[in-house]
Protein backbone atom coordinates (compact mmCIF):
# COMPACT_ATOMS: atom_id res chain seq x y z
CA UNK A 1 0.00 0.00 0.00
CA UNK A 2 1.38 3.34 -1.01
CA UNK A 3 1.27 5.95 1.70
CA UNK A 4 -0.39 9.14 0.62
CA UNK A 5 0.41 12.44 2.31
CA UNK A 6 -2.73 12.38 4.41
CA UNK A 7 -1.93 8.97 5.94
CA UNK A 8 1.69 9.91 6.37
CA UNK A 9 0.70 13.05 8.26
CA UNK A 10 -1.40 11.03 10.73
CA UNK A 11 1.52 8.68 11.32
CA UNK A 12 3.95 11.56 11.82
CA UNK A 13 1.53 13.25 14.19
CA UNK A 14 1.66 10.19 16.46
CA UNK A 15 5.46 10.23 16.39
CA UNK A 16 5.37 13.94 17.19
CA UNK A 17 3.11 13.46 20.21
CA UNK A 18 5.34 10.73 21.65
CA UNK A 19 8.48 12.82 21.12
CA UNK A 20 6.88 15.83 22.78
CA UNK A 21 5.68 13.74 25.72
CA UNK A 22 9.00 12.04 26.52
CA UNK A 23 11.19 15.11 25.97
CA UNK A 24 11.28 16.41 29.60
CA UNK A 25 12.22 12.97 30.92
CA UNK A 26 14.82 12.40 28.19
CA UNK A 27 16.57 15.71 28.90
CA UNK A 28 16.57 14.98 32.64
CA UNK A 29 18.18 11.61 32.12
CA UNK A 30 20.70 13.05 29.67
CA UNK A 31 21.81 15.97 31.85
CA UNK A 32 21.81 14.40 35.31
CA UNK A 33 22.40 10.70 34.64
CA UNK A 34 24.39 10.38 31.43
CA UNK A 35 26.42 13.59 31.66
CA UNK A 36 26.14 13.50 35.49
CA UNK A 37 26.28 17.27 35.78
CA UNK A 38 25.94 18.92 39.16
CA UNK A 39 22.54 20.42 39.79
CA UNK A 40 22.30 24.17 40.34
CA UNK A 41 25.50 25.38 38.69
CA UNK A 42 25.38 28.07 36.00
CA UNK A 43 26.70 25.76 33.32
CA UNK A 44 24.16 23.06 34.10
CA UNK A 45 21.35 25.55 34.17
CA UNK A 46 22.34 27.03 30.79
CA UNK A 47 22.91 23.64 29.22
CA UNK A 48 19.65 22.27 30.55
CA UNK A 49 17.79 25.28 29.17
CA UNK A 50 19.35 24.74 25.75
CA UNK A 51 18.88 20.98 25.59
CA UNK A 52 15.27 21.24 26.68
CA UNK A 53 14.16 24.35 24.80
CA UNK A 54 15.85 23.64 21.48
CA UNK A 55 14.04 20.38 20.67
CA UNK A 56 10.82 21.61 22.27
CA UNK A 57 10.70 24.79 20.23
CA UNK A 58 11.71 22.91 17.07
CA UNK A 59 8.91 20.40 17.62
CA UNK A 60 6.40 23.19 18.20
CA UNK A 61 7.62 24.98 15.13
CA UNK A 62 7.26 21.96 12.87
CA UNK A 63 3.67 21.31 13.92
CA UNK A 64 2.70 24.99 13.68
CA UNK A 65 4.24 25.56 10.29
CA UNK A 66 2.49 22.44 9.04
CA UNK A 67 -0.90 23.48 10.40
CA UNK A 68 -0.57 27.04 9.18
CA UNK A 69 0.61 25.78 5.80
CA UNK A 70 -2.68 23.93 5.40
CA UNK A 71 -4.70 26.96 6.51
CA UNK A 72 -2.71 29.20 4.13
CA UNK A 73 -3.41 26.94 1.18
CA UNK A 74 -6.95 28.35 1.35
CA UNK A 75 -5.71 31.95 0.99
CA UNK A 76 -3.65 33.91 -1.53
CA UNK A 77 -2.70 37.57 -2.02
CA UNK A 78 -4.88 37.58 -5.13
CA UNK A 79 -7.97 36.56 -3.16
CA UNK A 80 -7.10 39.03 -0.41
CA UNK A 81 -6.86 41.81 -2.95
CA UNK A 82 -10.28 40.93 -4.30
CA UNK A 83 -11.77 41.08 -0.79
CA UNK A 84 -10.20 44.47 -0.10
CA UNK A 85 -11.33 46.14 -3.31
CA UNK A 86 -14.02 48.80 -2.82
CA UNK A 87 -14.21 48.39 0.95
CA UNK A 88 -14.85 51.52 3.05
CA UNK A 89 -11.88 52.77 4.99
CA UNK A 90 -12.13 51.43 8.53
CA UNK A 91 -13.63 48.09 7.49
CA UNK A 92 -10.85 47.84 4.91
CA UNK A 93 -8.21 48.35 7.62
CA UNK A 94 -9.79 45.70 9.84
CA UNK A 95 -10.07 43.16 7.01
CA UNK A 96 -6.57 43.90 5.72
CA UNK A 97 -5.08 43.38 9.18
CA UNK A 98 -6.96 40.13 9.75
CA UNK A 99 -6.11 38.80 6.29
CA UNK A 100 -2.50 39.84 6.89
CA UNK A 101 -2.30 37.04 9.45
CA UNK A 102 -3.45 34.20 7.20
CA UNK A 103 -2.38 35.27 3.71
CA UNK A 104 0.90 33.68 2.62
CA UNK A 105 3.31 36.58 2.37
CA UNK A 106 7.06 37.06 2.35
CA UNK A 107 8.52 40.52 2.78
CA UNK A 108 10.56 39.89 -0.38
CA UNK A 109 7.25 40.23 -2.25
CA UNK A 110 6.28 43.46 -0.49
CA UNK A 111 6.93 45.58 -3.58
CA UNK A 112 4.89 43.68 -6.19
CA UNK A 113 2.12 43.30 -3.62
CA UNK A 114 2.13 47.01 -2.87
CA UNK A 115 1.96 47.90 -6.57
CA UNK A 116 -0.79 45.36 -7.19
CA UNK A 117 -2.87 46.78 -4.35
CA UNK A 118 -2.39 50.37 -5.51
CA UNK A 119 -3.39 49.39 -9.03
CA UNK A 120 -6.57 47.78 -7.73
CA UNK A 121 -7.48 51.11 -6.11
CA UNK A 122 -7.09 49.89 -2.54
CA UNK A 123 -6.40 52.90 -0.27
CA UNK A 124 -2.79 53.23 0.91
CA UNK A 125 -3.81 53.04 4.55
CA UNK A 126 -5.48 49.66 3.97
CA UNK A 127 -2.39 48.36 2.22
CA UNK A 128 -0.27 49.51 5.15
CA UNK A 129 -2.56 47.71 7.58
CA UNK A 130 -1.80 44.54 5.62
CA UNK A 131 1.92 45.23 5.48
CA UNK A 132 2.01 45.83 9.23
CA UNK A 133 -0.01 42.81 10.33
CA UNK A 134 1.54 40.31 7.92
CA UNK A 135 5.03 40.17 9.43
CA UNK A 136 4.16 41.14 13.01
CA UNK A 137 1.40 38.66 13.69
CA UNK A 138 3.34 35.73 12.58
CA UNK A 139 2.06 32.24 13.22
CA UNK A 140 5.41 31.14 14.55
CA UNK A 141 5.43 34.01 17.06
CA UNK A 142 1.90 33.29 18.19
CA UNK A 143 2.32 29.60 18.75
CA UNK A 144 5.70 29.89 20.41
CA UNK A 145 4.25 32.53 22.73
CA UNK A 146 1.43 30.11 23.44
CA UNK A 147 3.85 27.25 24.08
CA UNK A 148 6.19 29.19 26.34
CA UNK A 149 3.90 31.65 28.14
CA UNK A 150 0.36 30.36 27.76
CA UNK A 151 -2.69 31.48 25.84
CA UNK A 152 -3.12 34.83 27.61
CA UNK A 153 0.16 36.26 26.35
CA UNK A 154 -0.44 34.81 22.88
CA UNK A 155 -3.92 36.33 22.71
CA UNK A 156 -2.65 39.67 24.00
CA UNK A 157 0.02 39.68 21.35
CA UNK A 158 -2.43 38.95 18.53
CA UNK A 159 -5.04 41.48 19.65
CA UNK A 160 -2.48 44.22 20.25
CA UNK A 161 -0.80 43.50 16.92
CA UNK A 162 -4.16 43.73 15.17
CA UNK A 163 -4.97 46.99 16.97
CA UNK A 164 -1.65 48.50 15.91
CA UNK A 165 -2.08 47.38 12.28
CA UNK A 166 -5.65 48.72 12.06
CA UNK A 167 -4.88 52.06 13.70
CA UNK A 168 -1.55 52.61 11.94
CA UNK A 169 -3.22 52.08 8.56
CA UNK A 170 -6.10 54.33 9.52
CA UNK A 171 -3.78 57.12 10.68
CA UNK A 172 -1.59 56.83 7.57
CA UNK A 173 -4.67 57.18 5.40
CA UNK A 174 -5.70 60.36 7.23
CA UNK A 175 -2.28 61.86 6.55
CA UNK A 176 -2.87 61.95 2.77
CA UNK A 177 0.42 60.38 1.86
CA UNK A 178 -0.37 59.60 -1.80
CA UNK A 179 2.21 62.14 -2.98
CA UNK A 180 4.97 60.21 -1.19
CA UNK A 181 4.53 57.15 -3.38
CA UNK A 182 6.96 57.03 -6.31
CA UNK A 183 5.12 58.48 -9.30
CA UNK A 184 5.80 55.58 -11.66
CA UNK A 185 3.78 53.27 -9.40
CA UNK A 186 0.56 55.02 -10.43
CA UNK A 187 1.48 54.73 -14.08
CA UNK A 188 1.71 50.94 -14.08
CA UNK A 189 -1.00 49.20 -16.01
CA UNK A 190 -0.40 45.51 -15.82
CA UNK A 191 -1.68 43.00 -18.29
CA UNK A 192 -4.79 41.31 -17.01
CA UNK A 193 -3.90 37.81 -15.93
CA UNK A 194 -6.27 34.94 -16.43
CA UNK A 195 -6.69 33.85 -12.86
CA UNK A 196 -6.85 30.12 -12.77
CA UNK A 197 -7.60 29.37 -9.13
CA UNK A 198 -7.34 25.65 -8.97
CA UNK A 199 -9.23 23.80 -6.27
CA UNK A 200 -6.87 21.68 -4.25
CA UNK A 201 -7.64 18.29 -2.76
CA UNK A 202 -7.03 17.77 0.95
CA UNK A 203 -4.12 15.54 0.05
CA UNK A 204 -2.57 18.35 -2.00
CA UNK A 205 -3.02 20.74 0.93
CA UNK A 206 -1.28 18.30 3.27
CA UNK A 207 1.54 18.08 0.75
CA UNK A 208 1.67 21.88 0.70
CA UNK A 209 1.97 21.74 4.50
CA UNK A 210 4.96 19.38 4.22
CA UNK A 211 6.62 21.64 1.66
CA UNK A 212 6.13 24.62 3.97
CA UNK A 213 7.74 22.73 6.85
CA UNK A 214 10.75 21.82 4.69
CA UNK A 215 11.16 25.34 3.35
CA UNK A 216 10.59 27.31 6.54
CA UNK A 217 12.34 25.02 9.01
CA UNK A 218 15.41 24.77 6.79
CA UNK A 219 15.49 28.58 6.71
CA UNK A 220 14.90 29.44 10.38
CA UNK A 221 16.50 26.66 12.41
CA UNK A 222 19.79 28.56 12.60
CA UNK A 223 18.05 31.67 14.00
CA UNK A 224 16.23 29.44 16.40
CA UNK A 225 19.35 27.72 17.74
CA UNK A 226 21.21 31.03 18.06
CA UNK A 227 18.19 32.55 19.79
CA UNK A 228 17.95 29.65 22.22
CA UNK A 229 21.70 29.73 22.86
CA UNK A 230 21.48 33.45 23.73
CA UNK A 231 18.46 32.67 25.88
CA UNK A 232 20.36 29.86 27.60
CA UNK A 233 23.27 32.19 28.32
CA UNK A 234 20.94 34.77 29.85
CA UNK A 235 19.16 32.02 31.77
CA UNK A 236 22.28 30.67 33.42
CA UNK A 237 24.65 33.61 33.71
CA UNK A 238 22.58 36.77 34.12
CA UNK A 239 21.63 37.31 37.76
CA UNK A 240 17.99 37.10 38.80
CA UNK A 241 16.25 40.51 38.53
CA UNK A 242 19.15 41.99 36.60
CA UNK A 243 16.70 43.16 33.95
CA UNK A 244 14.31 44.66 36.48
CA UNK A 245 16.23 47.95 36.54
CA UNK A 246 16.88 48.08 32.80
CA UNK A 247 13.66 46.73 31.35
CA UNK A 248 11.36 46.83 34.38
CA UNK A 249 8.22 48.86 34.87
CA UNK A 250 9.87 51.65 36.82
CA UNK A 251 12.17 52.62 33.99
CA UNK A 252 9.94 54.87 31.87
CA UNK A 253 12.52 55.14 29.12
CA UNK A 254 12.77 51.37 28.74
CA UNK A 255 9.90 51.13 26.23
CA UNK A 256 11.17 53.66 23.66
CA UNK A 257 14.75 52.41 24.04
CA UNK A 258 13.60 48.81 23.47
CA UNK A 259 11.79 49.86 20.31
CA UNK A 260 14.78 51.87 19.07
CA UNK A 261 17.04 48.88 19.62
CA UNK A 262 14.48 46.49 18.16
CA UNK A 263 13.85 48.18 14.80
CA UNK A 264 17.31 47.77 13.25
CA UNK A 265 17.68 44.29 14.75
CA UNK A 266 16.55 41.71 12.32
CA UNK A 267 15.46 38.30 13.34
CA UNK A 268 12.47 36.18 12.70
CA UNK A 269 10.06 35.23 15.44
CA UNK A 270 11.67 31.87 16.04
CA UNK A 271 14.97 33.45 17.00
CA UNK A 272 13.66 36.28 19.15
CA UNK A 273 11.25 34.34 21.36
CA UNK A 274 13.80 32.36 23.39
CA UNK A 275 15.51 35.68 24.11
CA UNK A 276 12.18 37.16 25.16
CA UNK A 277 11.62 34.16 27.39
CA UNK A 278 14.92 34.68 29.16
CA UNK A 279 14.40 38.46 29.50
CA UNK A 280 11.01 38.03 31.15
CA UNK A 281 12.46 35.48 33.53
CA UNK A 282 15.08 37.98 34.69
CA UNK A 283 12.59 40.64 35.67
CA UNK A 284 11.93 42.57 32.44
CA UNK A 285 8.31 43.72 32.36
CA UNK A 286 5.84 42.22 29.91
CA UNK A 287 4.99 45.52 28.19
CA UNK A 288 8.60 46.43 27.53
CA UNK A 289 9.43 42.92 26.34
CA UNK A 290 6.43 42.74 24.00
CA UNK A 291 7.34 46.16 22.57
CA UNK A 292 10.86 44.92 21.96
CA UNK A 293 9.63 41.77 20.26
CA UNK A 294 7.06 43.56 18.10
CA UNK A 295 9.64 46.06 16.89
CA UNK A 296 12.15 43.34 16.02
CA UNK A 297 9.80 41.19 13.95
CA UNK A 298 7.20 43.78 12.89
CA UNK A 299 9.45 46.58 11.72
CA UNK A 300 12.53 45.41 9.95
CA UNK A 301 15.26 47.31 8.24
CA UNK A 302 15.41 44.97 5.22
CA UNK A 303 11.69 45.39 4.58
CA UNK A 304 11.85 49.18 4.75
CA UNK A 305 14.81 49.15 2.37
CA UNK A 306 12.79 47.01 -0.05
CA UNK A 307 9.80 49.36 0.27
CA UNK A 308 12.01 52.35 -0.52
CA UNK A 309 11.74 51.26 -4.17
CA UNK A 310 8.10 52.34 -4.22
CA UNK A 311 7.90 54.83 -1.35
CA UNK A 312 9.62 58.17 -1.03
CA UNK A 313 11.67 58.70 2.10
CA UNK A 314 9.07 60.75 4.05
CA UNK A 315 6.54 57.93 3.79
CA UNK A 316 9.09 55.39 5.00
CA UNK A 317 9.61 57.54 8.09
CA UNK A 318 5.86 58.04 8.54
CA UNK A 319 5.29 54.28 8.32
CA UNK A 320 8.03 53.39 10.79
CA UNK A 321 7.06 56.33 13.03
CA UNK A 322 3.35 55.50 13.18
CA UNK A 323 3.85 51.77 13.72
CA UNK A 324 6.67 52.42 16.21
CA UNK A 325 4.44 54.80 18.17
CA UNK A 326 1.70 52.17 18.24
CA UNK A 327 4.15 49.60 19.57
CA UNK A 328 5.30 52.00 22.30
CA UNK A 329 1.71 52.70 23.34
CA UNK A 330 1.12 48.96 23.66
CA UNK A 331 4.26 48.65 25.77
CA UNK A 332 3.18 51.42 28.16
CA UNK A 333 -0.37 50.09 28.31
CA UNK A 334 0.83 46.65 29.38
CA UNK A 335 3.25 48.03 31.90
CA UNK A 336 0.42 50.04 33.39
CA UNK A 337 -2.18 47.29 33.66
CA UNK A 338 -0.20 44.14 34.36
Amino acid at each position, binding site marked *: MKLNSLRLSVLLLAVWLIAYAVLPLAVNVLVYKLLSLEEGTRLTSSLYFFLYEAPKVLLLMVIVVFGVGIVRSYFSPEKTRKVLENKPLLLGNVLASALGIVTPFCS*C*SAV*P*LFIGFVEAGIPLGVTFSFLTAAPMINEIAVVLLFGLFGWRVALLYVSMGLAIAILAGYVINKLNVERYVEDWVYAI*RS*KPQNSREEVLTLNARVEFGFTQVREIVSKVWVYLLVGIAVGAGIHGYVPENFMAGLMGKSAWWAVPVSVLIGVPLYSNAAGIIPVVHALLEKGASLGTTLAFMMSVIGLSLPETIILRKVLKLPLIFIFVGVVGTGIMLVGYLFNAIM
Partner: protein
Amino acid sequence: MVIKVLGSGCTNCKTLEKRALEAVVSVHVTATVEKVTDIRAIAAYGILRTPGLVIDEEVVSSGSVPTVDAIKGLIVSHAAKGTS
Protein backbone atom coordinates in the same frame (compact mmCIF):
# COMPACT_ATOMS: atom_id res chain seq x y z
CA MET B 1 10.01 30.10 -26.92
CA VAL B 2 11.06 32.80 -24.46
CA ILE B 3 10.99 31.96 -20.79
CA LYS B 4 11.34 34.76 -18.27
CA VAL B 5 12.07 34.53 -14.59
CA LEU B 6 10.68 37.52 -12.71
CA GLY B 7 12.32 38.42 -9.44
CA SER B 8 14.59 40.98 -7.88
CA GLY B 9 17.37 38.62 -6.88
CA CYS B 10 16.08 36.71 -3.86
CA THR B 11 17.26 33.14 -3.33
CA ASN B 12 13.95 31.75 -4.62
CA CYS B 13 14.39 33.61 -7.88
CA LYS B 14 17.86 32.17 -8.39
CA THR B 15 16.59 28.68 -7.68
CA LEU B 16 13.76 29.16 -10.17
CA GLU B 17 16.16 30.33 -12.87
CA LYS B 18 18.36 27.30 -12.35
CA ARG B 19 15.41 24.93 -12.50
CA ALA B 20 14.00 26.62 -15.60
CA LEU B 21 17.35 26.13 -17.37
CA GLU B 22 17.42 22.49 -16.33
CA ALA B 23 13.87 21.96 -17.55
CA VAL B 24 14.63 23.55 -20.92
CA VAL B 25 17.66 21.32 -21.45
CA SER B 26 15.76 18.13 -20.65
CA VAL B 27 12.64 18.73 -22.77
CA HIS B 28 14.60 19.52 -25.95
CA VAL B 29 12.84 22.71 -26.93
CA THR B 30 14.58 25.73 -28.31
CA ALA B 31 14.02 28.30 -25.67
CA THR B 32 15.90 31.14 -24.05
CA VAL B 33 15.72 31.82 -20.35
CA GLU B 34 15.88 35.49 -19.39
CA LYS B 35 15.96 37.12 -16.02
CA VAL B 36 13.81 40.17 -15.32
CA THR B 37 14.98 42.06 -12.26
CA ASP B 38 13.60 45.54 -12.88
CA ILE B 39 10.71 46.02 -10.50
CA ARG B 40 8.70 48.09 -12.98
CA ALA B 41 8.95 45.39 -15.60
CA ILE B 42 7.98 42.77 -13.02
CA ALA B 43 5.00 44.81 -11.84
CA ALA B 44 3.78 45.14 -15.42
CA TYR B 45 3.07 41.40 -15.43
CA GLY B 46 0.58 41.97 -12.61
CA ILE B 47 1.95 39.37 -10.23
CA LEU B 48 1.60 39.92 -6.48
CA ARG B 49 4.33 37.52 -5.45
CA THR B 50 7.80 36.83 -6.69
CA PRO B 51 9.33 34.80 -8.17
CA GLY B 52 7.23 34.67 -11.31
CA LEU B 53 7.62 32.41 -14.32
CA VAL B 54 6.57 33.66 -17.75
CA ILE B 55 6.43 31.63 -20.97
CA ASP B 56 6.01 33.68 -24.16
CA GLU B 57 4.58 36.62 -22.18
CA GLU B 58 2.08 34.46 -20.30
CA VAL B 59 2.47 34.22 -16.51
CA VAL B 60 2.37 30.52 -15.65
CA SER B 61 3.31 30.65 -12.00
CA SER B 62 3.99 33.18 -9.26
CA GLY B 63 4.89 33.09 -5.60
CA SER B 64 6.35 29.63 -5.62
CA VAL B 65 9.29 27.72 -7.01
CA PRO B 66 7.89 24.84 -9.09
CA THR B 67 9.97 21.68 -9.34
CA VAL B 68 11.93 20.94 -12.51
CA ASP B 69 9.29 18.37 -13.48
CA ALA B 70 6.50 20.88 -12.96
CA ILE B 71 8.31 23.41 -15.14
CA LYS B 72 8.78 20.77 -17.85
CA GLY B 73 5.03 20.17 -17.70
CA LEU B 74 4.34 23.88 -18.06
CA ILE B 75 6.66 24.13 -21.06
CA VAL B 76 5.15 21.09 -22.76
CA SER B 77 1.56 22.18 -22.25
CA HIS B 78 2.41 25.65 -23.44
CA ALA B 79 4.07 24.28 -26.58
CA ALA B 80 1.04 22.08 -27.24
CA LYS B 81 -1.27 25.08 -26.93
CA GLY B 82 0.85 27.03 -29.40
CA THR B 83 0.72 24.42 -32.15
CA SER B 84 -2.92 23.41 -31.94
